Every structure is written in C-alpha cells, then in structure tokens.
C-alpha cells in the first residue's frame, strides 16, 4: 500500500472515530461567546466558576468552554479589565451542555484610570523580552496555506521556494538561513518527526500558533540555533475538539488535515493529528527554451511541468492522561510520516529532470511528562523523550536527458551528477529533553534545560553497497540555564542565560595508505550566553533589547567527510554569531479600534560559516571549511490594526543589509583583502514587505454565520544574483521584483463549525521568482471545506 493511500485510510477512520466520539461524550460543558456592547468578540476574558479551581480565558474569537466534573449549583463569573464584571448562577446536570453567551459593558471609570485590556497569548508573547514573531494561525484556518506560507507573511522572515507544493525551500530569519535556523514542534526539534515533516507540508490547521525567535533563543528550546528558531505550538487545550478539512485546487492539488482530541470521563485522552498532501504541480512554465530544428535555433514556449508530483502524509496518535496526582500531563505517542516526490529541475529551470525521485519515511515514538509544583510549590518539571528512525532515498538512475516538452535523449548518464546513484540516508535518533523551572517568588524565577541528542548518520549508494561502511555518530549535550527577574511590578523583565554545548563526533575513516578504516573521535565544548530585557514605559508601550552569543555545531559529515570524496577537517570550528536585537512596541485600544505597532533593529555578526570547498578546480575531492563571515544590520516594522471584528489590517516591512565580512579567503594568507570584502552579500532578498486585509461580517448567510474576505500582497524587491560591484551592469543577472497577490472569501456557519472557502493565489498571474530562473506557480484556485467541532 502506498503511504498516501495508507494515510488516507487512517485519516478517514480516525475522522469517523473522533467524529462519533466527540458526539458521544457525556461530561458537563458550559460554552459560549463573550462580546462587548458593540458586538465585537472579546479575547482574553477570564471565565471562572466561583468557589472552584475551574476557569479559563476566552480565545481570540471570544469563545470559552469549561468542562465541569460534578453536577451542582455554580456561579459563573466573567471579568475583564475595562469592563463591568458579570456573574450568573447556573445549575448543571450530568451530561448537560449549557450554552451561555455574555455581553460585557464598558467600565468607563476603569478605562479612564488605565487602558488595560484582555490580551491574547500571542500578544503576551510579543511583549516578552525576546524578539519574537507570535502568529496566531486561526486567521488562516480556512485557507489552504501551509506553515511556510503563513510565516512568510511576517516581518524579518523570507522563505524562498524553488517551485510548487512540497518543493525545497530556504528559510531565513533576519538574513541568516539554512542550518542556522532550527524548527521545533511544541518545543522539541521538528526533525524528530523525520525529514519528510517540514514547514512546506504541514497544514496550518495543525498549529494553534507559531513563535519565531530571532537571533536570541530561550534556553527551553535547547538547541544550537545560530540565527533563530521557529516553534510550532499545537492545540494544548484540554477540551475535546475536532478540526477536519479538505481542499482541492489547481494543478490537481489535494490537501487533507485532521486534528482532534477526545477525553473520557476518567481523564484518559486520545489526541490524533494527520495530514495528507497531493499535487501534480503541473503549473505552466512560461517562455522555456526548446530546440526548433526547422528554424535551427532555440525558441521560447510555455510548457507544463511534467515530473513534479508530490505526495506526503503524516499521522500521529497520542494517548495519555492529564491532571493526575503524579502528572499534570503524561502522553505516549507514535507517528509516521512519508513523502514521495518527483524532482523536475536542478537549481535552474534550464536543467530539466524527468526521472529523479526522492522519497522517505520516518517513524517516531515519544513520551512526554509534565508536572507543576513537583515536590515543592513553584517547581515545574517537563520531560520529553523520543526515538525515531528516518530514512530517505534519492534515486538518480536515468540514462536520459529530458527537455521541457517531455522529450528525452539517451545519454546513459544520470541526471543530477552524471553517475547513477541511489543514495540512501538512514538516521536513527534518540532525543531527550528535561526542563525544570522554579519560581522562587514573583520576582525571581529560574529555568534549567538539558537536551541529549544522539544521531547516527548512515549514507550509502545502494548501487555500490547495501550498507554504510562508515556511519557517523553525533551526540550533543546541551545545557541551558536562565534566570529571570520581574521588577517594578513586572514592568522590567530581565532574563540572563547561559548555554553549554557538548559535542562528540565519531566516524571510521578510510586510510588510503593502508586501505583500512580507522576510528576517529572528537569531542568539543562551547559556551554561549545572552541577555534579554524588556521595560514597559506604559502598560502598552515597551522597549526591549536582547543579545546572544550563539552557535551552530559541526555535523559529522562536515568534520570527517566521507573518507574519499570529502576529506576530514578536524580543525573545523562551529559557526558562531553575536546577535543583537533592540526594539519597541506600542499598543493602543480605544473603543473598537485596536492598534499594535512594533519595530526593531537587528545586528548579526556571524563567523565561520561552514561550506564544502573544492581545493583544486578540477578535483573530485572537497573538504568542509570555515569559509566566510557575514555581518547583518537590519530594520523591521509591523503594524496591526483591528476595528472590532469587522476589519483587520496588517502590514510589515523588512530591510536587511548583509555584508561579506570575510577579509581573506580560505587558503590565502595574502596581505590583500579579498575583492568582495565588505560588499553586500549577493543572491539574497534585502527589502520585502507584506500587507494583509480582512473584512468580515456576521450573520450574512444565516444566524451564527460569518463571512470573511481576505486580501494579501507580498512584495520582494529585486536583487542581484552575484556581487553588485563586479562585472558590467549590462551583463549582470538579477532576480526581478516579486509581487504576489492572494484573495480568499470564506463563510462559516454554526459558530464556525462548518466552513467553506474559495481562494485564489497569485490572482494577477505575475511571474514569481524566489531564486534565479526558477519559476514559481502562477494563478491557482482552490476550495476548502472544514469542519470544526469544539
């Protein structure tokens, strides 16, 4: 059975199971929406049952839901600063689902004194000392976006895609990209789910929100993230829910997403999430060169992509309990993910492939445990452990050269490198993380984080061998410790942290003189440190500054090579960077108007970037070296404005100036600085912006319905492919300006339970390039149906 079909079956069965289960539940529930006098929904409103420990806050749509274990008479209290508190007596019977909405009146007196209002979790994250993009994904829940597309709309982030659905991408945060950026899922590395699980295929519905840490990363994400980190946070709500969606669109694109939770009365919880993506990616490539024998020249024609089918699927099941004496949270989980992908082009669209494929699958078993107030009050512990096996195969065995019209010529060469290969990469991995936090007092708190990461890397060519002769083993021990102080009634927050990186690598090396393998070991330690501070001048006006000396540790292959075509370099240093952010934010709320502005300046001074260097121009041997240094200075700004729930507008702009700081190139000791020293780094977007507009009205198509229209625009300023100063202007290659406009309209019924949306991406059908001569899709339509039960 193909992974796609297998996953689809699992998906549908789970859908059925969870759908029935969600209906079959019998605990007591109170839910409803809280709004103000104008009818705008109120997020962050506190909803409590008087005399009990049960309580919650309304979400971004003003919705709350409480699970109550015992029947009885209760008083429900709804309170929000700036509004008059309301109470309501309720009598709850077993199995009852009481729906109770509230309208809060403004407390003018209160507002005169101080403009405080309910803040969503994302807003609280934005106001913390770290420079962070906090993105609530709910706004995108009815779109067909994957996580990359959502993140790409935010300040300081640039995702450069090579093609359509599932294509390779480069993710950059404030000008640092590639291995400098680490991805996390609920605080643990996303890679644990396998290399097939990536931001370009995870549907937006699987995430509750995302946090992007720029340059300075909290210790709890224990990792060697040089340029920043993205943390995807899934729904941690303890209530039952089901979010299922399916979309169909241009280029035969189908996407399925399922995410749900069911808890029994005894507190046993089942969580399931799954997705499946399929696309032919057969979008039109405009103006491709093709040989015309009659005219005896190359002519330009439009062709559909013909070898770019993409399939991916993931399924995860977690079983556990919450709120037990011995554990607040205890879950055991298992996941599978797989991809099956055709590769259409090389790094430029004039290199056409017709047979290269890439596929992979990964299994992961995990355990997570959380307990607050462990042994003593204020001591919170959080443990995660997992074992995963990741395998992927790149098959390049064609004997043909392909052309855009699909025709081919026998060459008896493989397409990528000439030599036929079936490259297998197996990566068994053990990962553990323990995090302990202690709140000594409201002023002082401490956090210690330890991660252990053991990765074996087996790479071999199936055509030559059935196993890796020289697997590499990499273990990382990373300890982070942070101290946070909240002074002046929480107006001033300082976080001081240190990180200890322990790296140990092991690999057998081929010794060409003796023809034998010799084991090589190395271990190294590095220390990083940083500080993050925030001062609130006014309750909604704050300034922040942060600094980190960050590292990206070496990989086994980089240090030891593969023994013959890549030679070892035991003197290789980790990539390191000094990162600084200085920023300010201001929030303003008046009646229905809500404005949030943030801006920051960032500075990165990165050294020792690791790249493979070919020593001799025509040699088959390369070696990883610390080749280059880069200095980045940049500015970014973001404005969000809401008018009640009628209008939402967001715009951001990012500017980054990355300078080559490499004075002498590797292997030269010459007194003359390298020509490109202090030149702007080429082939990197340096000015880009986004704008997003949503207009929504309730009850247009029936009661409890909402219609929403979204318009978004993305702009990337043109940039040079190569060094700006060198070569004549007329001969220089550029990546042109990119304007992409998307529009969607959606309607939801029954308070968001049933949703239908129509979307058009790139509706002006502009040519879009993230990379030189790699066309991205033109105009594309899609329809999405979503069922959301809570």
């Amino acid at each position, binding site marked *: 059975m193909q992974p796609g079909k297998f996953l689809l079956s699992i998906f549908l069965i789970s859908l059925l199971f969870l759908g029935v289960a969600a209906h079959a539940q019998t605990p007591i529930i109170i839910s409803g929406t809280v709004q103000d006098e104008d009818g705008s929904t109120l997020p962050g409103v506190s909803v409590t049952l008087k005399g009990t420990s049960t309580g919650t806050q309304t979400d971004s749509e003003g919705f709350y839901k409480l699970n109550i274990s015992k029947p009885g008479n209760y008083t429900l209290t709804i309170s929000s600063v700036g509004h008059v508190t309301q109470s309501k007596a309720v009598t709850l019977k077993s199995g009852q689902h009481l729906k109770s909405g509230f309208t809060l009146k403004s407390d003018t007196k209160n507002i005169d004194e101080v403009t405080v209002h309910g803040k969503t979790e994302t807003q609280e994250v934005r106001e913390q000392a770290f420079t962070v993009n906090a993105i609530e994904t709910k706004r995108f829940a009815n779109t067909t976006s994957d996580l990359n597309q959502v993140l790409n709309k935010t300040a300081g982030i640039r995702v450069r895609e090579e093609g359509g659905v599932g294509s390779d991408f480069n993710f950059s945060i404030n000008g640092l990209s590639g291995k400098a950026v680490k991805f996390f899922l609920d605080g643990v590395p996303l890679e644990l789910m396998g290399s097939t699980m990536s931001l370009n295929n995870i549907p937006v519905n699987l995430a509750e929100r995302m946090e992007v840490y720029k340059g300075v990363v909290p210790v709890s994400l224990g990792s060697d993230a040089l340029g920043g980190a993205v943390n995807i946070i899934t729904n941690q709500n303890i209530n039952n829910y089901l979010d299922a969606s399916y979309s169909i669109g241009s280029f035969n694109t189908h996407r399925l997403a399922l995410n749900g939770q069911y808890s029994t009365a005894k507190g046993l919880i089942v969580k399931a999430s799954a997705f499946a993506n399929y696309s032919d990616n057969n979008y039109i490539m405009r103006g491709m060169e093709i040989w015309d024998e009659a005219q005896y020249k190359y002519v330009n024609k439009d062709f559909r992509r013909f070898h770019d089918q993409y399939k991916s699927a993931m399924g995860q099941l977690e079983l556990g309990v919450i709120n037990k004496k011995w554990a607040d949270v205890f879950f055991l989980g298992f996941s599978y993910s797989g991809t099956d992908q055709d590769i259409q082009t090389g790094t430029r669209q004039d290199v056409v492939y017709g047979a290269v494929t890439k596929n992979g699958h990964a299994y992961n078993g995990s355990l997570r445990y959380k307990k607050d107030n462990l042994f003593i009050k204020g001591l919170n512990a959080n443990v995660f452990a997992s074992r995963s096996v990741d395998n992927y195969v790149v098959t390049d065995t064609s004997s043909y050269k392909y052309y855009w019209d699909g025709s081919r*010529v026998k060459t008896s060469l493989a397409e990528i490198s000439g030599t036929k290969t079936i490259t297998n990469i197996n990566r068994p991995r053990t990962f553990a993380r323990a995090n302990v936090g202690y709140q000594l007092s409201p002023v002082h708190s401490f956090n210690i984080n330890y991660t252990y990461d053991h990765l074996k890397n087996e790479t071999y060519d199936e055509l030559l061998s059935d196993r890796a002769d020289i697997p590499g083993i990499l273990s990382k021990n990373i300890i982070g410790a942070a101290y946070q102080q909240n002074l002046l009634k929480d107006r001033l927050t300082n976080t001081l942290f240190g990180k200890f990186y322990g790296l140990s690598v092991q690999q057998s090396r081929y010794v060409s003189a003796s023809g034998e393998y010799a084991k090589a070991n190395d271990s190294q330690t590095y220390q990083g440190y940083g500080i993050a501070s925030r001062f609130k001048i006014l309750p909604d006006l704050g300034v922040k500054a942060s600094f980190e000396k960050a590292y990206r540790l070496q990989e086994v292959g980089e240090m030891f090579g593969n023994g013959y075509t890549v030679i070892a370099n035991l003197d290789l240093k980790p990539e390191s960077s000094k990162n600084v952010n200085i920023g300010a934010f201001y929030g303003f709320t008046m009646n229905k108007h809500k404005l949030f502005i943030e801006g920051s300046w960032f500075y990165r001074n990165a050294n020792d970037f690791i790249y493979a260097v070919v020593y001799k121009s*025509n040699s088959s041997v390369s070696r990883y070296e610390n080749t280059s240094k880069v200095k980045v200075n940049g500015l970014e700004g973001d404005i969000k404005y809401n008018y009640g729930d009628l209008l939402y507008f967001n715009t951001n702009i990012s500017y980054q100036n990355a300078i080559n700081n490499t004075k002498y*190139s590797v*292997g*030269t000791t010459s007194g003359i600085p390298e020509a490109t020293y202090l030149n702007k780094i*080429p082939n990197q977007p340096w000015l880009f912006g986004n704008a997003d507009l949503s207009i929504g009205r309730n009850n247009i198509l029936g009661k409890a319905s909402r219609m929403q229209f979204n318009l978004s625009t993305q702009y990337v300023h043109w940039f040079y492919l190569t060094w700006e100063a060198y070569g004549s202007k007329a001969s220089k290659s550029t990546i042109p300006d990119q304007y992409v406009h998307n529009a969607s309209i959606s309607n939801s019924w029954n308070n968001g339970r049933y949703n239908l949306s129509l979307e058009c991406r790139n509706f002006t059908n502009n040519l879009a390039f993230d990379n030189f001569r790699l066309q991205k899709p033109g105009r594309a339509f899609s329809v999405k149906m979503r069922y959301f039960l809570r």
Partner: protein
Amino acid sequence: MFKKFKLYPFLIALALIPFLNSCSSDDDDDTPTAVETQEKYTVWLQIGSWPNTTQYVLATNSLTEGSIDLTGHGAEVTGKSAYGIITKGGFYYYYNTTTGRFSKFKYEKELYSTVLEVPYTHLADVSGFTWINETTLFVVGTNGDQNKMQYSVIDTETLKMTNGVLDAPAIPTGFSYYNLGNIEYTNGKVFVQFGYSSDWPNPWQNKAYIGVVDYTTLKYDKTLSSTTSAGPGTNKLWLSSSFVDESGNTYFATNVENSNLSVKQSAIYRIKKGTTELDASYNVNQATLGYQGVGLWYIGDTKAIYKYIDPAITGSTHIYAFAVMDLETGKIIRKLSEIPNDGDAYIQNIIVEDGKVYMITNAETGKDYVYIYDIAAQTVKTGMEMIGGYDWVLRLDKMK
C-alpha cells in the same frame, strides 16, 4: 548656415547606415566592424567565498602594461559556462552537460553573449579537443557509462556535427572506465592519449596509451602504449600537456597527480612527423626532468614551459612551479622562480606571442600580475596588473 549645410548630408548618411548594414549582413556573416571592436585578450577571474563565488571574463588590449579591474567591468560567466572552455578566432565553444547544449559564445565590449547553440548529448563530457582546421573542431569523450570512446566533428560556423564511436581496445579486466585527455591532429591522423581507471579510490592502470585515428575515414587504426608513465595526460579545456611543434613532431606528456598510483612517474612521449609510432629514441621522464609534471606548453624553438610539483613546498597548496625546458634534452634549463607558485594545476594560463610568453598564476601572497617571459633574453618581468584581490585567476586567452 555653414553648420547646417554640413549637418544635412551627415544626417542622411547616418540614417542610411542601418539599411546598408542590413543589406550586407545577409550575404556576409563576418561583419568586419564586429571583429574590430573585440578586445585582444581576455582574463577569467573568480571572486567571493563559497557559496557566493562568481566567475567573470574581462578583456584588455595590452598585457604588457596598465591594469584591469572587475569593478563595474567584465561579464559574469557563472551559470553560462565553466572556465574549462575551447577558444579560437575570437569565439568560445562550450559543452554544457547539465543543459545538454553545445554553445558558441563571444566576449566583446563587456558582454558575454551566445552566438549560437544547439542540443548536444553525444559525449558525457568533452575530455579533449583538437583543431582539424580553422573551422573544424574534433572533440573526444566517453559515453555516460564511460566504457566507450566517442567523438564528434564539429563545424564551428554552423555547429553541425558528425558523431561516432572509436573502436578502441576493450577495457581490461580489473578496470571499468576509459580516461581520455590529450589529443592532437597532424598529418591526417588524430592521436588520442588515454588510460584505464576503476572506481575511486582504486588507482589507475599503470600504463599510458595513444590511439591513432585516421581522420579521413574516422577509423581507429592502432594503439601505442608505454609503461614509463600512465594515463591520458590532461584535458586542454583546463590545462595543456600536448602539442605539435613547428616541424610537425607531436609531444604528449602525462599527469599522474590524481592517479592514486603508489609510485608516480612523469613522462613526455614524442611521435615524429609522418610516423604513427612512439619515438623509441626519445626518453624523457621524471629522471631527466627532475620533477613530477602537471602541464606543458610549447613556446617555440624546441622549448616548452613545464609546470611541475615543487616537493620543497609543504603546508601550502601553492606547490605548482614553472620552468623552461628543452624538449631535445628533456631537461629543465631555467626555473621561472620570478613567477610565484600557482595554487592550482588546472589553470589554462599561458599564451605565446612575438617571442614572449604571457603567464598568469595564483600567487599565495602579493598582487596579481601578468608575467612576461622573453624567450630570447630569458628574462621575466611583470606586465598588466589585475587589481582587486581575486580568489582565482582562472585562464588567459588570446582572442585575435
């Protein structure tokens, strides 16, 4: 009044130029004006640290004086062609294996433009080339599996080709591939130097071969062999090590640097004019030369520039030194110690003109110059400077 009178005929003449030009260009491809504006020499340069390395071609009319600077000048060649390229008559010829095209380029007035290109996949790569005449190019290479020796005869005006397979001796047991390199055409015969190899890191077969091909019939006639040294020599796209001298003798050198052989021995072979045998009386090898060679360029009057590995250098990649050798004696007659050691063997860096040798090198320290060796006076002096701290000076070509 006087001014106006002069201006009118001038403007009319100016307006007529495009018509005149378009009339003449139909029956005459070789517009003389285009040739005249092309610069005399080109230099290929590389700048930037990986992954932002970029290669450029830049032109000059004099190698003896002045300087060139890439700032605002030259044309990017990265993505269009590698610096392993064929040049003749002001044009470049390049086989792009990733796109499957054979292209003819011209560099002129800051632009590197495509003159003509055609689909081409007959060879896995160009392993060697030689000129049959001014417009006929003979290239050799293998098939994709590297187990067949193939050729193409290319008309460089139209890029029309004749493709075929040479009936070379089968690959011996224990080896998997043909290795091709030096190739020379003289007196109706094409000589193709080759060797056999296996998968890396296994060493080459310790033997050098020269296949004799009759150009008129395109038949593989016979194989010459020697165990003095091994392998195919070098690919002239990147580095020269064979030539035909003015008296019609053909010389083939070997390059065993990357052979993985435990004992590496260099040799130079000679085929005398009109014969198709190795000259048995010609014994030039590592013992006579004193050093392991990587490249060889003929400079006239039985003299050649010998590029060799200087074993005295340790802890540096700049191990390639230059010397003048006498082809008759097989001995080095003058080390060119004035020219800094090169950081790479595979640099096509020498042109000979009017009794002078113009050379570039990748020096470890100091400025980059064109070095001029006066053959008669046996002196070295610096010529044009390449300003700017370039990572690599990749090749030097004479355009006309």
